[in-house]
């Protein structure tokens, strides 16, 4: 009876496609309340303010906007920010893989403590990391003095910026590669070995392709984090315009000069870039899940 009634109420399929409901029916309560609360909160805290940033930058005319965004000082800051972030993410790609490998495959004294310590850059406030790394890498610092012997200055140069960005991006590659490496089946390696592959060939031809999606995800995460980093870099960079000034710092300078529209324009450039990276990372993670079947 109820079936009959419901079919009678449905519009004839020839006139309009049956509309898929926005949300599937469920016996569980609270969808309206929870999605409403979450959407309201997210809009107030995140989306409306971010939209305000884009709107503010559009207060400038296109030529003005272009002038701010392509100003030589801004371009120099992009070069430093992107260059140092790429270098730092690259360092983390190589050493992160080695650290993950060692933590998953080998047993040695203090392994669990070291494993826990890998997350330090997530937990240590960036300002603390900034002053600590600066103290280490000045020409008189514990580490910096050795570089200074070779006439290399680390703190207050782009090298120092790279050091800070390496620190803050360190956990990403380790933490994305570690679970994938732990889940790899031993049989594949045994098969490769029994077919006559050397250990290095097995690594390059069998293990590395399997780890590639997670390696790339970790690399992209470290890179994205480095692009926006401010706290740890301002102390070690020296903040010289055209030389060691990162883009977030340039935004800060514009704000201090009450150039709100200029700050918003640079902020919008960074925001768009972050958003693209975020989508890319999601695609990578999707790919990685598909590859590992998880």
């Amino acid at each position, binding site marked *: 009876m109820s079936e009959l009634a419901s079919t009678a109420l449905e519009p004839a399929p020839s006139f309009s496609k049956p509309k898929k409901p926005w949300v599937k029916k469920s016996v569980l309560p609270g969808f309206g309340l929870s999605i409403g609360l979450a959407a309201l909160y997210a809009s107030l805290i*995140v989306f409306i303010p971010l939209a305000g940033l884009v709107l503010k930058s559009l207060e400038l005319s296109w030529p003005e906007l272009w002038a701010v965004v392509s100003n030589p000082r801004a371009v120099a800051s992009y070069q430093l920010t992107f260059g140092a972030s790429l270098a730092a993410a690259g360092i983390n790609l190589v050493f992160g893989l080695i650290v993950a490998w060692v933590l998953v495959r080998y047993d040695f004294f203090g392994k669990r403590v070291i494993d826990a310590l890998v997350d330090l850059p997530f937990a240590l406030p960036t300002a*603390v990391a900034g002053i*600590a790394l600066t103290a280490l890498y000045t020409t008189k610092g514990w580490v910096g003095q050795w570089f200074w012997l070779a006439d290399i200055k680390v703190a207050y140069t782009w090298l120092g910026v790279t050091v800070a960005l390496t620190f803050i991006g360190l956990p990403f590659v380790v933490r994305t590669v570690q679970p994938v490496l732990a889940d790899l089946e031993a049989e594949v390696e045994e098969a490769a070995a029994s077919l006559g592959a050397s250990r290095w060939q097995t690594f390059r031809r069998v293990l590395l392709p399997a780890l590639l999606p997670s390696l790339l995800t970790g690399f992209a995460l470290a890179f*994205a984090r480095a692009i926006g980093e401010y706290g740890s870099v301002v102390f070690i960079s020296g903040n010289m315009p055209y030389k060691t000034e990162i883009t977030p710092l340039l935004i800060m300078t514009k704000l201090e000069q009450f150039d709100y529209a200029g700050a918003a324009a640079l902020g919008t450039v960074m925001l768009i870039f972050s958003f693209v990276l975020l989508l890319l990372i999601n695609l990578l993670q999707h790919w990685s899940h598909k590859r590992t079947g998880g």
Partner: protein
Amino acid sequence: MAGAVSSLNSRKTGAAHAATSEATWVRVVLISVALTFLALFLLLPLVIVFTEAFAKGAQVYFAAITEPAAAHAIKLTLIAAAIAVPCNVIFGLAAAWAIAKFDFRGKQFVITLIDLPFAVSPVIAGLIYMLLFGRQGFFGPWLGDHDIQIMFAVPGIVLATVFITFPFVARELIPLMQEQGKEQEEAAITLGASGWKMFWRVTLPSVKWALLYGMILCNARAMGEFGAVSVVSGKIREQTNTLPLHIEILYNEYQFAAAFAVASLLALLALVTLVLKSLLEWKAAREHELAVRAASAQ
């Protein structure tokens, strides 16, 4: 028969061991490289914070962390975290409930958007509130007329902190609640439990470790945030100075020992966070293992 099998196995693992693991010297080299890298980038920064903090003696250290400006900075940091963490817990629970237990269109997009504050530079997090509530901002004139100050005051600091720590709880809860499915909650509802009762008795107990985990990470970030807060705070000593900003001021005044003394407090917070995090991971893994064993025994 059993003996033959076991000897076969042992021979096999012996052979496999050589073929699927590395020579001893390779192991030693890899472990040394990894440990050197971690010592250089993780251990040394941590060690230098404490040595520099005590470089001028314990007296300077304790003076630096008990002076009124430092005490005020500690208070403000605690206030900001005490508001930001509960706000993001409520949001995280609501968002995770809607996303994990219901099917709706645009879900994947919503999950991506939740991550946005992670991808955005902290400076931009401060900047957006400046553009809204600053004197030249959208609401600036109105706020000025009504004598409400948000920028360069505590509300601005709290807002920036909330933005920065926005995704932490939600991100921990969503994958776990998706994995747990909805059978238990559906059973509770069909058996006549009210929505709240189901939430308190079924949902909350099953996600409690993940929730705590998210809260700990959220708290660490809230107390340590620097970039976003430094845009909106104005850095007025004893008024709008949080601990990380206080470190910057001391450092720029060349009071290095005092700067590192205050920094050592935040480094301790980081260490406590790591210990709690490891404990929770261990506990959650053990409960998971027990549940799996119980399920396979049935």
